[in-house]
């Protein structure tokens, strides 16, 4: 049985111990800045900071396969498309027969790829160092309804269970002769007999889970004590405000001519 979608990596680094809001601020501000700052050196500088943070949290090794598997193909695709076909292309970098790779397009592709790198690395930095339960608890401690907190936490565990149930149904139908390989149309048709049992079993499971939650008092209108102590500090709060201030400052700088 799969445990869930959480990719949290156990650790004791300062980032692991930091309040989820602090890590959330680092992530959100990094993503925002990646798309606000005007030029490649700034975006690459941000990427370097994020890589340093991943290394500091001792999760860089987990990030490398993601970078290679997801970000490298995206980068190559952006460089090829922009390098060959950007409307602003003027300066030939490499001529390949009838086609030419242009400097301007390569720069645009590289900038877009670097921004995506920042976005992905910031998101993974948060996911690797923050337990979903801690994140949900931090939101509930600041007024989020326990029902929403439950949705955040349970989705990460229940979705993989549903996917596994879908696999079991598919295998059962295959054992009864259902053809799920071959041309696209045949595969599409094969999924129709899978849908009904999947939907029905999901409805039954959802109903049973809802009843089980009800008999465990979920939603009782009582004062609920905080389950997890999430240490926070003045320094962390100051850091969050400082990070948040960077966004309007960067936007204002862009309006004032930052190029």
């Amino acid at each position, binding site marked *: 049985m*799969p*445990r869930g979608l959480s990719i949290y990596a156990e650790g004791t680094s300062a980032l692991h111990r930091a309040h989820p809001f602090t890590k959330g601020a680092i992530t959100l501000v990094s993503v925002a800045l990646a798309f606000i700052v005007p030029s490649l050196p700034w975006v690459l500088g941000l990427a370097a900071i994020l890589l340093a943070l991943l290394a500091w949290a001792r999760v860089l090794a987990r990030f490398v396969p993601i970078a290679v598997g997801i970000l490298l193909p995206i980068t190559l695709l952006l460089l090829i498309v922009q390098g060959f076909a950007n409307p602003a292309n003027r300066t030939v970098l490499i001529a390949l027969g009838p086609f030419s790779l242009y400097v301007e397009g390569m720069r645009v592709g590289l900038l877009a790829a670097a921004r995506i790198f920042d976005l992905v690395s910031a998101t993974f930095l948060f996911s690797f160092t923050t337990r979903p339960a801690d994140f949900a608890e931090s939101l509930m401690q600041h007024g989020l309804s326990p029902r929403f907190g439950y949705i955040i936490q349970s989705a990460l565990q229940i979705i993989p269970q549903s996917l596994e149930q879908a696999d079991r149904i598919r295998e059962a139908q295959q054992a009864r002769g259902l053809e799920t390989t071959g041309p696209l149309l045949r595969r599409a048709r094969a999924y129709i007999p899978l849908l009904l049992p999947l939907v029905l079993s999901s409805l039954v499971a959802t109903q049973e889970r809802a*009843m089980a939650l009800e008999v*465990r008092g979920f939603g*009782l209108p009582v004062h*609920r004590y905080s389950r997890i102590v999430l240490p926070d500090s003045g320094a962390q709060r100051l850091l969050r405000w400082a990070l948040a201030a960077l966004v309007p400052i960067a936007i204002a700088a862009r309006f004032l001519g930052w190029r």
Partner: protein
Amino acid sequence: MTPALLMEGVRFRYPETTPYVLDGIDLTVARGEWLGVVGPTNAGKSTLCYAAMGLATEFFNGALTGRITVLGTDIRKEKVIERSRRVGMLFQNPFTQISGARERVDEEVAFGPENHGLAPELVAERVKESLERVGLSGVAERHPLDLSGGQLQRLALASLLAMHPQMLLLDEPTSQLDPVGTRDLFGVLNHLHQGGVTIVMVEQKLDAVAELCDRVVAMAAGRVIGIGQPEAVFNDIAVQDSAGAPSYTRLARTVGVKPPWPVTFDAAVRALHA
């Protein structure tokens, strides 16, 4: 003392269906009693549990007539969520009873008491005590989904015990468990029963029902067709034909032992020696 569960003239049908799933049930369960509920498919056994918990009306919005009181309170005057403070219900499927929101076994057990607003120190105490009672203390830090089906069902039971219920409604709690998981769960239930917890248990493992339960109610087509001590109920031919009988009873009947047929292992040994 008021009974743990009282049903008087209870009829129930699910929305947009005509037949009554419960059709004139009269039943009294004393406090501290362990009642087994047996019967064929569609006898209304699970619905009996849903009705007693209040889920039949509150969750399924079915039509209920007659009177049900649980631990002295009419079910119409108390919501399921309030009743969860005193009554626990265990379902068939251990996987759907896990909240899905907790990453450790002990955190999963704490889910219910936390919902009831108990202070963290008290929650921790109850978690420890409940895990010890079901024999899962050694896996407290593991992920719930790392447990076997039997362990998961014991975890679901521990999650209910942590809320200190006075009565447990069990809907085929061993239907998805292997023999070892089944034996372990019955062991825990037996211990709880000795501690004074009232248990109403729907179960198809009739040998266990005959061994463990104080009384048995046999149902068919929404009606009670037999009620009393296991020996009496399982010796009723109508019950045997409809709900089945423990293996010892069937064996004794097959080899020509004269009635009353034994329903437990010890009674079977005595009967075969005689």
